[in-house]
């Protein structure tokens, strides 16, 4: 069974640089329609596609992403 994971994105830290989207192998992140208090459209997590590889958190300059993985 493939690894399953989950990420949490802190909306108010995100500056919408889209680096996490460019590295995600499962395309499990997208830019949301909402606006955070800095005025950016933050990235948001699309459920059930994440494998918990943590590539998004490695490239995230704002340390806005926390990664959880099963096992």
């Amino acid at each position, binding site marked *: 069974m493939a690894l399953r994971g989950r990420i949490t994105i802190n909306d108010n830290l995100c500056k*919408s*640089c889209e*680096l996490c989207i460019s590295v995600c192998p499962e395309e499990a992140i997208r830019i949301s329609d909402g606006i955070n208090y800095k005025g950016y459209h933050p990235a948001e997590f699309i459920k059930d596609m994440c494998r918990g590889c943590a590539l998004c958190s490695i*490239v995230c*300059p*704002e*340390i806005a*992403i926390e990664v959880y993985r*099963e096992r």
Partner: protein
Amino acid sequence: MKKVFTKPKCLKDIPFHYCPGCGHSIIHRLVAEVIDELKISDCVIGIPPAGCAVLAYNYFDIDMCEAPHGRGCAVATGFKRAQPDKIIFTYQGDGDMAAIGTAETLHAANRGERITAVFVNNAVYGMTGGQMAPTTMIEQKTTTSPFGRRSEVEGYPLLITDLIATLKGPAYVARHSLATPAKILATKKSIKKAFEVQIKGLGFSLVEVLSPCPTNWKLSAVDAYKFLESKMEKEFPIGVLKDVTKRK
């Protein structure tokens, strides 16, 4: 579910002031992770530069002391000689280390001071508005070289890390890039090695990190990382340039 990635402990819970996609905050995180892994947060002293990272002391939960522009290695020398049991690192940009602080850096390296320097190279003066730096590449456009840098007028980019690697004092000299997640992890390993070299007292250690500046390169964050890999890594080849621990 098990948490596999979170903020390092020695970074404070303060949002970074850097532009979207800036490499500085990634390098801050790597340095903080290394300090956490080596468990040296109570005996490490950091020296932030003048430049975009001038406010680095706001983010690190360790002792830090600001140095005058370019004098990071000189201030670090003083700290290390006064308190040899402390771990001292400087965090410097390309304007700081390759322009105004060349003399201080080269001589600290040549003396083999037991300090670690983290050198962030983004090929422009970021904070002052994107002027040409000594490390600006040929044909790269900046606000003071609007038609691109020309070698016959402005000279060639200064590869100060290669210069330092030719000296006898340094123990570990490496150049890395933030272009991909794998290279970011390699950068972290190298920074850890540089701190370990200092802890062992082998000599000066320097890690140059090629970092993107999307704002002053006039690119989107994703394109800036592609530019970093396709253009900048050709001008500044990445790799370990000197490692005395391997020779023994």
